[in-house]
Structures are given as C-alpha cells and as structure tokens.
C-alpha cells in the first residue's frame, strides 16, 4: 500500500523533531525541512500529498510555499501553521487554497487529526490515529 508523502516545513527545528515520529506512526512518509528555500526545491521535484508549513519564516514565507505546492499539484493538501493567526492571514490562506490552518501552540494530536482527515479525503484509507 502506498504511503501518503508528507513534507513538514518549520524553521524551528524542534517542531519537526517532535512531530516526525508521531506522523510516521500514522503511516506517512515524512520529510522534514527547516529551510523554506530548500523546501521549494523539494516541492518542485516531487509531488507531496500533504505539505505542512509554518507561515513566518526568514526570507520565504509559508504563503510562498503554499503557492508553490498548489502550483506543483492542485491535489496537494497544504496545512498552515501560524504563530499569530489573524483574520487577514486566514482569508489569504484560504484564497490561495490552503486545506486548513492550525495556530501555535497546538497539540501534536490536533495536527495528526488534520493529517488523517486530509489523507482519508485523498483516499489513503489505512491512515488513522493510533
């Protein structure tokens, strides 16, 4: 059975470090990236099923990642993580086709629920919360 491909981008290293294990346990193939510029390259090279990205990062913002991912494939589900959720930001994200948004600080389980939901929608039936 094919695993959903997942890319997690956050310039805070601890985020990927802590989330990776849990997401893999769900049954995802998880790639972690701290540098958004490298993330853009990855997105261009390979179609991810799910992209999880922080918004506020140096040089390249999560919005650019969102755009890149949606351009690469409209199938990609992009989940936005933000440290400061404003109505403006939410509107912009939705307009650009984000799947959902989650505000820091969040529980790993909450993110996992979102991921499961997205994966199931995409047809990955054997993905579920353990």
């Amino acid at each position: 059975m094919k695993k959903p491909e997942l890319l997690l981008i956050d310039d805070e290293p601890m985020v990927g470090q802590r989330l990776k294990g849990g997401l893999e346990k769900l049954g995802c193939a998880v790639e972690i990236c701290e540098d958004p510029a490298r993330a853009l390259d990855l997105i261009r090279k390979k179609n991810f099923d799910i992209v999880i990205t922080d918004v506020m990062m140096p040089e390249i913002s999560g919005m650019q990642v969102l755009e890149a991912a949606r351009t690469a494939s409209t199938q990609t589900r992009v989940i936005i993580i933000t440290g400061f959720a404003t109505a403006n930001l939410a509107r912009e994200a939705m307009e650009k086709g984000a799947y959902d948004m989650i505000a820091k600080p969040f529980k790993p389980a909450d993110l996992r629920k979102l991921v499961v939901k997205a994966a199931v929608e995409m047809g990955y039936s054997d993905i579920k919360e353990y």
Partner: protein
Amino acid sequence: MPFHIRDKTARMAAPDDKDLLDRPIFSFRLQIILGFFTFFILSVLITISAMITINKIEKRIATVQTWDRFLFNIEQARRWEKNFFLYGTNLKDALESTGAALEILNENINSLDSSDYSWQKEEIIRHLDRYHIELNRLSQLVESNRSQPAFQNEIEANLRQFGAQMVEEAAEMAAREYEMVSRWLHLLQKVPAYFLVFLFFLMIYMTRFLSIRFMKPLKYLVNQTRRIARGDLTPLRPVRKFRDEFTTVEVAINRMLKELENRQKSLIDSHKLRAVGILTAGVAHELNNPLNNIMLTAHTLMEEFTDIDDDEKLDMVKDIIGETDRSRSIVHNLLDFTRESKSVMEPLNLGRLAEETTKLAVNQAKVRGVPIHIQIERHLPDIIGDRHQLKQVFLNLVLNALDAVGSDGKIHVRVESRKPNLVIAQVEDNGSGIPADVLPHIFDPFFTTKPVGKGTGLGLSVSHGIIAKHGGRISVESAPGRTIFTVTLPYYPTARGNEEKPGSSEEPPH
C-alpha cells in the same frame, strides 16, 4: 488643599534656579546709577576747584592793586622829592605820600602775607622807613634854614638810594603777582577744555562698558536659545559672578526648559506605548514559537513516555526548560523596553543596543516577510546615553523602515565608529523613499503621511529630541528605493570622565 500661596516662592528656590539666584545682585539699574553718580561727583569736583581758583585770582588781583597803589604813592613821593631838589618846592606832599604808602602797606599786610610769594617785608618796610626818615630830616633841615650842602647831599643820596630800591622792589612784587594772576587765568582757561576732553573719553568708556555689559549676556542668551533649539534641554548655568536683570530671564528660560522637558518626556512615553502596541503582534508570534515547542515536547514526552529511554526523556525536559527560558527572555526584552524608567546616562555599546532593539522588531518584520540584516563593528567604543531612550530611537527607525518597504523589502542596520570620536548607526531600507516636499517636515511633531490610526507623526520628532539630548545628530538621505537614517553620537574617551554631559560640550566658553 494642594493650593499654596507660597508655591511660587518655593518654586523660585527649585534646585535649578538656585545656582542662578545664589549670586549677589548687581543690577544694570545700579550700574547706571553708579555711572551717573561718578559723573556727577566729578562735575562737582571740577566746579568747586574752578570756584576756588577764581577766588584765588580775585585775591591776587587785589594784591596786584595794592602793590600798584603803593607804587603810585612811592612814585608820587619821589616826584615831590625831585621837585624839591629842582625847584625847591615843599616836602610836605612827599611826606604825605610816603605816609599813605606806609598806610597801604599796613592795611594790606595780611593779604600780602597770604601771597604765594614770600616778599621781603622787612626790607621794603625798612627802606620805606629810611626814606621817610631821610625826608623828615631834609624837611627839618629846610625849616631850620641853615644851609649845610654836605649834609643835604648825603640825605639826597640816601633818598635816591632807598627810593630807587623801594620802587624796584614794589614793581617787582607787582609784576610777580601779576604774573601769578595771568598764570591762574591761563590755567582756568585750559580746565574746561581738558574737562571736555576728559568727559568725552569718560562717555565713550561708559557707553562701551555698558553696551558690553548688555551685549555679553544678550549674546550668551542668544547662543543658549540656539542650543535649546537644537534640542539640548540642559538648564542654563550661571556664567557671571553676580545677578542682574538678565537673571530673571535666565530663571524664566530654565523654567520653560523644565516644562519642555516634561512635555517631551510625556511625548516619548506615549510614543513608546504606541510602539509597544505595534510590537505586540510580532512579540506574540515570537512567544508562540517557544510555547509551541514546549507544548509539542511535553505532549511527545507524555505520549511516548513508556517507549523512550531515560536519556531521551532528559533531553526533552532540557528542551522544555530551554524554551521556557527563551519565552522568559522574549517577555523580558519587551518589558525592559516598556518599563517606566528614570533617565540614567550610562556607558553603552550602541551596537549591542541596536541589536537588542532590532530583535524586538524582528518578528514584526517576519510577519511582513522583511529580512533585517544587522552589521555591527566589533569593539565599538562606549557612548554615554540613556539605554531606554536610544532603544526607542532605533525602534522608531526600524518600524518606519518596515512601514516604508513593500513585499520585497530589505532593511539594513549598521553600527560603526567614525573618526575622530563618533559612533554612527544607520537604518537603511529599500522602500518608497521620502518625496522632496515631505522631507523637510518629517522631524516635525505630528507630521505623518500615514493614515489615521497608523501613524501619529511623533516617532521622528521624539527621536530627534532624544538624540539632540545626547549631543548627537540624526539625519536622513532619501531617494526612491533607498532611504538611510543616520544617527551620529559622540563618544568620550574614558580618560576624560564619563560623568560629563555630552550636550554641554558645544557651549561657547565665557
């Protein structure tokens, strides 16, 4: 009741006024009065001495007249005497004349004695006596009708001798006295001329003295107002040893400075609160990062508690502690900026200060996706300043730059030292630039091009005030796509002492 009549006098003795008022009074009124009084005394002296001189001249003239009359009588006697020898006229008239001469001498003996010249009193009187005696002898001889030519010849010779001597002496005295009179007169003629010349110079001197006395404090005040206009609000110090009418002005200026300083301080404070408001979004974001890390780590620890080994658990707990520390320092950084604080002048590393301040705004910049590059010279010399106020200046500049840049904005913060004793800090952005017609106004209070609610227009005005207070300058260079604000602050070699107030160094010496 908080209302006191004595309030005014109490304020008069406020510490700043005290130095000014703790001097002896020497007012211009007093100085002018003294000047005119000196002038009056001099005039009185001149007048009195002129009167004395005239009086003396009068006396001398009287003496001259006395001698003239004496001489006249003697000459009269000599004439009678000559007539007697030539024509045999009587001698009675001659005797009368010598008597009159003697009388004149006796009458005026006091005034003659008071003369400046010692006259040969005994000599003249003796000669007069002898002349008189010889005349008497001659008249007795004539009355006795005995002809004794030898005796008569002897008398005649004596008469000639004493008569001639007397005339000579009297004439000499008269001439001397006359000369005296003319000398005094001469002097009297010159005195008014001298007095005029003296008066002329005295007036020039007094005019100069008074105008210098007026101009100096005026000039000082003008210089001080220039300094104040540049934003240096240090109170005036006493420069003269005494108090005068200008002191009132100085005290008033100092009071005004105090008011200005208070007002400036409240402007600074209110603008600071605004800046803090702007920062909140960024700070909230920044704070959420470590909070998120704590949350994720704690949850992971809980979920995987039984699956992981102790080392890993310890690492996670350490991470939690580290992130808590990070949160604390974020909050501390903001609070440190917000805190109501007394203005303390202390040695500061401007580079570190700029770095700390930029950190405050860096998340604000992240929100907008604007990178801030910081470039700081190593081993910067310390400047003397108020850290909170200088932070506020940098924050204003960085926030302005953030407002000015677009989506591809970039901000550079640079701090470096310049010869001879300057530290310069620059905030550069690649934003819209400042139009030429706006540029002259940007430092004016309440001047803003930003929409209501977004800008108050106090940022640069407050920054300018703060930098001026530190004895520095803030300048701007702008073109579309490149705006650089430059803060220049002087530093003082530690050898010269750090207590010295930077702002006071440009005062002209007095």
